[in-house]
């Protein structure tokens, strides 16, 4: 409707017939003004309220988008309130009127009001309901009833007697026990049954009490004998205890005993086969652990994948990784972090735990090893504590004995310092490792008749200590390796390694698992040796011999894990280049660091080299021995690295250099028997290998970022959930919540209204009461006044009469 407020009002009034032409007559139709007069006022009120803008409340829309239908954007709250109130009032009045007047029967029959059930279904349901109630009843009642153990009510009876066979048998017993009652042979009344049951239960109770008393007596008796046992136990434990009956002491003792270690069951005596089997199992387990450590990287592959799969990684700025090399463990300055392989590896964690426990249990076995019992044990008593132990005092042990007796003295020392004997022995053993190494060094510096025996005995001693306490001894061994690294770094003219260094490196290869992907001792040892191979100028026979020995140690380290060592490859090339009278060149050879030894090509039958290279002379026999050894090592290396894909290249390079050398020194041919095998290996490997396919990865779909089109989009739809079921559910949940709130609100309003009404009615009643009372007062006063007047009049009259 267009127009201003005033126009609207005028139109409305005209419509209602209040203004405008009043004398228009239409046939057969009464005019509005012809209505009764009093109605006129009402209709005017209506129009007034219609135009009263104060009664209308509008919800302001901030953003009216796309013609949304918004419910309740306009309303007349006061009007609504009024309607509500009236409704409530009507209800309330009805309630008040009906109060105390209407009674009735509540129909609680099942399904009576359910229209969906047929009469038959109703019957069935009712029957089932009845049964349920009946069956539930006895269990409820018998919750605390001791006597109701046998359920009588559920049993079928005939003429008050049980129909089951057991019940019949029981009755038979009853018959025999008290014939009197049975002779009467009348069905027992409920009272009688109850009496019987009560008597029975009392009897049982009495019996239980008796049994308990007897038990207590027995315990008392045992307690009185406890001191005897206790003394026996304490004797056994090597403690002295006086018998004391004091209660506190007793409790203390009990506590002590509870805390005492329980005796482990003794091991059953095992047969030989069983021992063998156990040993095999243990070996298998250890081997599995070793392989797990060797493949440390494979387990960690997942971590790398995770890292690379993470798309955030691509967005990372370089700043996030201050030094990319550290990702691979190449720290230059701070190297707090573990190498990549050991990171959070659950597998290795359990490994170490197990190996730890293994070592614990092994300590005794290891240190129990029988050594030749030549030496008296009392000589070791001088090294009773950690303070007594220094190199001088340690060496004192060996002073009197000949070098050949060193093994015996060593094993005697280890035996006397077994950790089983005294706790402090552990520290003594750990500390003595450094001294043993020093002694080994000094021993090797001397001329030895049978160095192998001495070395082996030292090795077994070192091994025993290291195996027993791998963590405590780690630093000592590491320091020994660091010493070698320093020695190599400080070499200037003669780069020959001493026999002690070579032997120590070999020993490390025996006592530590060299196949580990990362090992705290072996990894640096490897680096130290390869540094030697790279940095050593190989200017003399003794240096070359050292290099050969180091190569052999390196190859032995890799006997299981078969990892490639480029420096060894380089060494083979340099070895022959240095020996060759004429210059040999190869792209892979470090030409600049090759110094010719001035070998003229004279060869003899090979001699034995020994391990003391410092005094090695350059005789033809030595040359031929070294050439032979190198050739053997090449074959070993080629076999070790048989599975590597670039084998044709490096073995090819060796073969090339050896062939050149052989061309220069024809007489060397008889010491280079392995050449043919090398050639064959290289050729075979070339046939076997295939071009690399390193980048065969699972295809990763590109993430689509196009928005999904929703054909049923609505701005009014709150839920983002597309699943209709879930949508329905959330809608219902919302509705329930709203309903609940509305109901609560309704209840509150109701109560408030009722309270108001009650107050009102009370006031009303009070007012009525007061009015009545006043009325009475007034009437009394009127009556009294009349009487008084009457009395006054009478009095006056009498006076007057007098």
């Amino acid at each position, binding site marked *: 409707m267009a127009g201003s407020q005033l126009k609207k009002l005028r139109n409305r009034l005209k419509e209602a017939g209040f203004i405008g032409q009043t004398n228009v007559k239409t046939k057969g139709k009464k005019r509005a003004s012809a209505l009764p007069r009093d109605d006129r006022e009402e209709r005017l009120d209506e129009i007034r309220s219609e135009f009263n803008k104060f009664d209308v409340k509008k919800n302001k829309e901030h953003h009216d988008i796309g013609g949304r239908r918004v419910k309740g954007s306009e309303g007349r709250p006061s009007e609504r309130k009024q309607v509500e109130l009236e409704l409530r009032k009507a209800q309330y009045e009805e309630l008040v009127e009906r109060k105390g007047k209407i009674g009735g029967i509540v129909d609680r029959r099942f399904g009576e009001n359910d229209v969906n059930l047929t009469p038959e279904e109703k019957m069935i349901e009712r029957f089932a309901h009845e049964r349920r109630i009946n069956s539930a009843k006895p269990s409820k009642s018998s919750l605390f009833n001791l006597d109701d153990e046998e359920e009588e009510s559920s049993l079928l009876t005939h003429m008050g007697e049980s129909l089951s066979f057991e019940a019949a048998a029981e009755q038979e017993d009853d018959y025999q026990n008290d014939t009197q009652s049975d002779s009467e042979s009348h069905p027992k009344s409920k009272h009688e049954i109850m009496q019987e049951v009560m008597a029975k239960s009392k009897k049982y109770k009495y019996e239980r009490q008796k049994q308990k008393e007897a038990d207590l007596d027995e315990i008392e008796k045992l307690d009185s004998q406890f001191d005897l046992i206790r003394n026996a136990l304490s004797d056994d434990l090597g403690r002295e205890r006086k018998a004391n009956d004091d209660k506190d002491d007793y409790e203390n003792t009990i506590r002590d005993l509870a805390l005492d270690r329980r005796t482990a069951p003794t091991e059953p005596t095992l047969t030989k086969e069983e021992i063998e089997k156990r040993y095999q199992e243990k070996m298998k387990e250890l081997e599995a652990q*070793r392989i797990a450590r060797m493949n440390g*990287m494979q387990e960690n592959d997942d971590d*790398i994948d995770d890292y690379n799969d993470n798309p955030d990684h*691509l967005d990372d700025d370089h700043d996030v990784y201050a030094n*990319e090399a*550290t990702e691979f*463990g*190449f720290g*230059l300055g701070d190297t707090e972090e573990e190498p990549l*392989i*050991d990171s959070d590896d659950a597998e290795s964690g359990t*490994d170490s735990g197990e*190996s*730890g426990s293994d070592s614990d249990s092994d300590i005794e076995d290891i240190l129990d090893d029988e050594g030749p019992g030549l030496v008296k044990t009392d000589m070791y008593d001088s090294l009773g504590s950690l303070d007594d132990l220094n190199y001088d005092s340690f060496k004192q042990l060996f002073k009197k004995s000949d070098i050949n007796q060193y093994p015996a003295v060593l094993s005697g020392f280890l035996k006397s310092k077994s950790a089983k004997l005294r706790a402090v022995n552990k520290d003594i053993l750990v500390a003595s490792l450094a001294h043993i190494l020093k002694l080994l060094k000094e021993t090797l510096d001397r001329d030895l008749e049978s160095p192998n025996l001495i070395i*082996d005995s030292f090795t077994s001693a070192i091994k025993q200590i290291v195996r027993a306490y*791998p*963590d405590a001894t*780690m630093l000592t061994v590491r320091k020994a390796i*660091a010493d070698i*690294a320093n020695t190599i770094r400080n070499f200037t003219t003669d780069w020959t390694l001493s026999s002690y260094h070579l032997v120590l490196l070999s020993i490390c290869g*025996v*006592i*530590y*698992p*060299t196949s*580990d*992907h990362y090992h705290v*001792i072996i990894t*640096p040892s490897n*680096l*130290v040796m*390869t540094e030697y191979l790279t940095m050593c100028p190989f200017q003399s026979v003794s240096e070359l011999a050292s290099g050969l*020995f180091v190569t052999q140690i*390196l190859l*032995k380290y890799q006997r299981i894990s078969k*990892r*490639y060592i*480029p420096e060894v490859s380089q060494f083979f*090339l340099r070895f022959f280049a240095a020996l060759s009278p004429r210059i040999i060149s190869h792209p*892979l050879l*470090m030409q600049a*660091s090759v110094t010719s030894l001035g070998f003229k090509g004279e060869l003899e039958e090979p001699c034995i*080299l*020994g*391990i003391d290279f410092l005094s090695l002379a350059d005789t033809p026999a030595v040359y031929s021995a070294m050439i032979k050894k190198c050739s053997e090592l090449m074959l070993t290396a080629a076999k070790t690295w048989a599975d*590597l*894909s*670039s084998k044709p*290249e*490096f073995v090819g390079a060796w073969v090339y250099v050896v062939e050149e050398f052989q061309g220069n020194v024809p007489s060397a041919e008889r010491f280079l028997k392995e050449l043919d095998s090398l050639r064959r290996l290289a050729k075979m490997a*070339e*046939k076997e*290998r*295939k*071009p*690399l*396919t*390193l*980048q*065969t990865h699972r295809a990763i779909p590109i993430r689509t970022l196009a928005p999904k089109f929703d054909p049923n989009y609505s701005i009014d739809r709150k839920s983002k959930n597309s699943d209709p079921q879930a949508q329905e559910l959330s809608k219902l949940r919302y509705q329930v919540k709203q309903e609940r709130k509305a109901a609560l609100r309704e209840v509150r309003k109701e109560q408030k209204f009722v309270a108001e009404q009650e107050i009102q009615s009370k006031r009303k009643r009070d007012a009525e009461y007061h009015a009545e009372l006043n009325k009475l007062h007034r009437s009394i006063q009127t009556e009294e006044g009349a009487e008084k007047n009457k009395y006054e009049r009478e009095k006056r009259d009498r006076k007057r009469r007098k």
Partner: protein
Amino acid sequence: MARSVALESPKKGISSVSSEALRLQRDIVGSVKNYNKLAQLIELSRSNKYAQNACTECFTHILMQGHFKPGKNGSDAQSILAKWLMKKYRLFLSILHSKLSDESRLKLSFDLLKLESSELAPVRNQYYFPAKTFQSLVKGMVSASEEVKNAFLNQIDSYDDLRYYMWTQEDILAEEARESSDSGTTALSEWFLESLLALGFPDDLLAAPQWFFAEPSKSSKLLQPDSHRKAFQDAYISVLRLPLGLDQYKAVLRVLHKQIIPYMTTPELLMDFLTAAYDFGGPVSVLALNSLFRLMQDRNLEYPDFFKKLYGLLNEDLFIVRYRSRFFRLFDLFMTSTHLSASMVASFIKRLSRLSLTAPPSAIVTILPMIYNLLKRHPSCMIMIQGVSEPSENSGKDLYDPQEPDPYNTGALESSLWEIDTLMSHYHPNVSSLARIFKEPFRKPNYVLEDFLDHSYHTLIEAEFKRQPRNSVPTEYEDFDSVMADYVEWSV
């Protein structure tokens, strides 16, 4: 008489010789007539310090007197005296300069130099540089001790005119030495190069000029920076033409691109030198690369077969030279372009990976990220790690020809990087995990090479020793009969 004194002086003792010198000095200073005794004094000064001092005093006196100046016409007595005196003076200077045993002698030389400049100037109070005396001094420094040399260079470096003349005179002397080419040249050229390198070109040239001699006139060359540059350049060019030792070449090349080329007016003149150095091979080539690249970049120098030479430089020896990281920094720069031909890049990749087969871990650590970056930049080379053709009978054969010098014809693209596959089982855990990046998807845009350059055995070992084991140290469970069992041939 004089001869006998000179011969007997060592026996007579120093005191008598010095008293004799003192007496002679007194005589000479006393009267012009005694100038003849100069010859005697000079003979004495050959072996005696005091005689040298006395002689210096005498010549100072004579210079002050102005007796060196020839007369009006060239034949009078004055001119004859001046000529004779000059001859004696030169003789004395050659003695003095050949015996610069300590800094006091050096001071005497500089004093004389200064006096000569002020007294012998053709026009009074005009700037004059006594070139001959200076040349003789510079030549004399060859045999001087290290201490004196340092003092000399300090003195030179603190005066702008001395520095300038040092360069010009060295240029002249070097030219002379080259032409004469006698046996003493090497010591001379070494000293020249040493002095040049020690002097260097000052950044704040002529900001606050210091003059050893008199203040130069306004039109003097000494006040023009360009003439300094020219002198600096000429000195270097001439000295570098002299035969030098390998160490000298290395020393020059090490600083050439940073401290020398920027101050030259026409650095193109170094081109021949650099080309020769680059062709030389070994570490010299590696060092020449930097300057050569600078010339190519700044001066549009054309160098044919640059990459071929670069390819030739890649060999095993590269990994142990001290300039390894310097080379690889440059190498990375050269290979930055994505417009290089794939076959050439493949050759470089293949060569690097082939070299890694016998390289120390520090080198492998540099090579692997480098190869990664190259593969990332040149995806057509990816077939080297991801073969596309069906494996056949001959596919195991490496078609790469390592002997081929031309990187365009090595056939590297038909080859596979088996070497990298081998390095995945390198003995050092970190290296092997680095090699495994080639197995992973190539998601990283590139590796920052700088982080991988400066590793060595030393850093790797030290890193190992600092590491604290988190888990228990595992030990070998197997028992061996004998440690040395496998080393049978070694033991007795």
